[in-house]
């Protein structure tokens, strides 16, 4: 029994303070993971309440006002407290230094600071809930957000603060990727997850400052009536939308790029095959990050912006499809003739491919101005971004958790239960959101607590399956945590999937407090399954 004597980051050093003041990127990642999952469940719970309200027309469970608060908080919590920090903050923090062979991120203190800044911002968001919520929608569009009597200021202040955490994490990762790689680990030998984090971090540091200043201007508009966004004071509310979406469209890529990275790791490992088109995937990450800055106006096709800009935005929006398509085809070609094993991470990766493709393709519908005028603010849009955000990002996140769980914690979950839960997530998800495409096409507007009789059938389907979805996710996450309680430990030398990146080949599970017991030396590329045989080693 070596594991009891073996030193790892989980058991050394000991004590609550050694966690709260830790500078270890793995522990900080864990704290992000737990707080992220907490907010994920909170946001999910709110979603279920809304779904059950919508099971039948009329106000059955909650009033219109509560409903307005519910969708605002669901959006704000899921986006700002879970999805944006979760993958970079949790998986990124745990894995990035391991993957580049570093002992830590470039600035460990800054890393801890960004976790606490995030927590501090989250406090404001929680205060908002306790104090009666906020009802503007997560976008805080003016002029309503300057007039609403709900808690716009605490919520925007919270988002403002969380923005700094996001910036600092991005800054840290970029410096780490540029400067902390071990000798020999050149850019084209980096795992694609690192490329994805690089693209994400670039977007984080470039876009988030604009969000910060937008939130400041919104608060000033409320306090001083500065008149920049308020039409009654000679300002322009559409300008607010430009400011907001200059951040929030790239933010979509902050959410999805790390998911792409996870999928690029899972698929070659579980297909035992070299990734197809490494450079294509790497550069498509960067080009998505860049094009993401040019297309924000497709959120504003009905806002009254100039027709000239509508055409330009619509045109550029289609270009996002190219690098995204490159990725999807590369992943499919990676699986082709590989030894695909249906492990839990792979189940999620396959779900991702299916769901994200639907999400992406419907995005092209919405990028067309003429069609968007009809579909704007309907359930079609709701279904589209849930296919991207949940079907894409969250499914990939769950896949990544299952993939790196034995590595991060040295314990293995019950794979059968995990597979069943993954299937439940896939079916429940489609059952919930596919009817919403149809609802949207038939003209059901979003953000309403009630609706006409004609929509009742599709809405009740959606509600039924949302219950299945919720239960499946709950089971999936609980199954992971159950492995702690059962102490189903794996041997520290295990490499259960036969991964080839540094975190699998050069460090124990769970990793040493300083990551590597001796300085790692690169022996092969991240996906050289055609050259080297890495055994799947999984012992209890």
């Amino acid at each position, binding site marked *: 029994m070596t594991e009891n004597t073996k030193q790892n980051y989980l058991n050394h050093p000991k004590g609550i303070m050694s966690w709260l003041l830790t500078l270890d990127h793995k522990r900080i990642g864990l704290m992000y993971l737990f707080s992220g999952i907490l907010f994920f469940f909170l946001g999910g719970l709110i979603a279920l309440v809304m779904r059950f309200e919508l099971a039948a027309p009329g106000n059955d469970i909650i009033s219109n006002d509560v409903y307005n608060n519910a969708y605002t908080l669901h959006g704000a919590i899921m986006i700002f407290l879970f999805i944006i920090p979760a993958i970079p903050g949790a998986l990124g923090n745990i894995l990035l230094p391991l993957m580049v062979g570093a002992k830590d991120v470039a600035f460990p203190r800054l890393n801890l600071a960004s976790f606490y800044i995030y927590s501090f911002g989250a406090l404001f968001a929680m205060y908002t809930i306790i104090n009666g919520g906020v009802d503007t929608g997560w976008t805080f569009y003016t002029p309503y957000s300057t007039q609403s009597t709900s808690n716009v200021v605490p919520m925007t202040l919270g988002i403002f603060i969380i923005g700094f955490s996001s910036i600092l994490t991005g800054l840290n990762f970029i410096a780490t990727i*540029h400067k902390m790689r071990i000798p020999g680990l050149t850019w084209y030998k980096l795992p694609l997850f690192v490329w994805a984090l690089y693209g994400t971090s670039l977007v984080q540091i*470039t876009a988030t400052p*604009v969000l910060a200043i937008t939130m400041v201007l919104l608060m000033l508009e409320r306090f001083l009536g500065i*008149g920049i966004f308020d*039409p*009654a*004071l*000679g*300002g*322009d509310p*559409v*300008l607010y939308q*430009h400011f907001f979406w*200059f951040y929030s469209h790239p933010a979509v890529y902050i959410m999805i790029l790390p998911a792409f990275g996870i999928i690029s790791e899972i698929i070659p490992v579980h297909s035992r095959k070299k990734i197809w088109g490494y450079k294509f995937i790497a550069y498509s990450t960067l080009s998505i990050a860049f094009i993401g*800055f*040019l297309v*924000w*106006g497709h959120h504003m096709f009905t806002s*009254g*912006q*100039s*027709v*000239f*800009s509508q055409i*330009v*935005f619509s045109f550029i929006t289609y270009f996002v499809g190219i690098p995204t398509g490159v990725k999807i085809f590369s992943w499919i070609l990676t699986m082709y003739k590989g030894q695909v094993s249906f492990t839990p991470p792979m189940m999620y990766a396959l779900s991702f491919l299916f769901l994200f493709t639907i999400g992406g393709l419907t995005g092209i519908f919405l990028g067309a101005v003429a069609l968007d005028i009809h579909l704007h603010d309907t359930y079609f849009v709701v279904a589209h971004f849930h296919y991207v955000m949940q079907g894409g990002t969250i499914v990939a996140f769950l896949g990544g958790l299952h993939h790196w769980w034995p590595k991060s914690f040295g314990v293995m979950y019950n794979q059968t239960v995990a597979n069943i839960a993954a299937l439940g997530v896939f079916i429940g998800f489609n059952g919930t959101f596919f009817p919403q495409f149809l609802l949207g096409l038939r003209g059901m507007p979003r953000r309403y607590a009630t609706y006409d009789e004609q929509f009742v059938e599709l809405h009740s389907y959606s509600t039924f399956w949302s219950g299945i979805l919720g239960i499946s996710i709950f089971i999936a996450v609980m199954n992971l945590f159950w492995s702690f309680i059962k102490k189903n430990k794996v041997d520290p030398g295990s490499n259960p999937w036969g991964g080839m990146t540094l975190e699998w080949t050069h460090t124990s599970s769970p990793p040493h407090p300083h990551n590597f017991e001796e300085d790692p030396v690169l022996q092969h590329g991240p996906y050289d399954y055609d050259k080297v045989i890495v055994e799947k080693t999984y012992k209890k």
Partner: protein
Amino acid sequence: MSEHHITPLRTYLIIAATLLFLSGVTVWVSYVDLGALNIVVAMLVATLKASLVAFFFMHLLWDDKKNLTMFLMSLMFFGIFVTITLLDTEFRGDLGLNPETKDPINKRAAFYDTLPLTDTHGHPVDEHSDDHHEDKDHH
């Protein structure tokens, strides 16, 4: 860390003198009426000054070029932000279907109607007193 580049003292002094001189130039030019060119000249001078600061004071000239890339990237994204926003704001209401949207913002805010006239010190002007020039009705 002796391998770091040490900029000679002379360079710093020359750059600072140039910056001060250019500040004078930009003020002087602003009093010359060049029409639309005024803003162009002002921005050119400012950009020249900013480049001097960035390359010499901030050592970008001798630094790793990655640092320069970061800085230029920030300017590029600023350019994107401005350009694309102007595609909307400069062409607002371009179809002409709805004339109301053509000039949405040039309406004077309502609170001006309630403001009393003031003198240059911000004190309300008593409209009946004689020691001030007559202000017309401000509507």
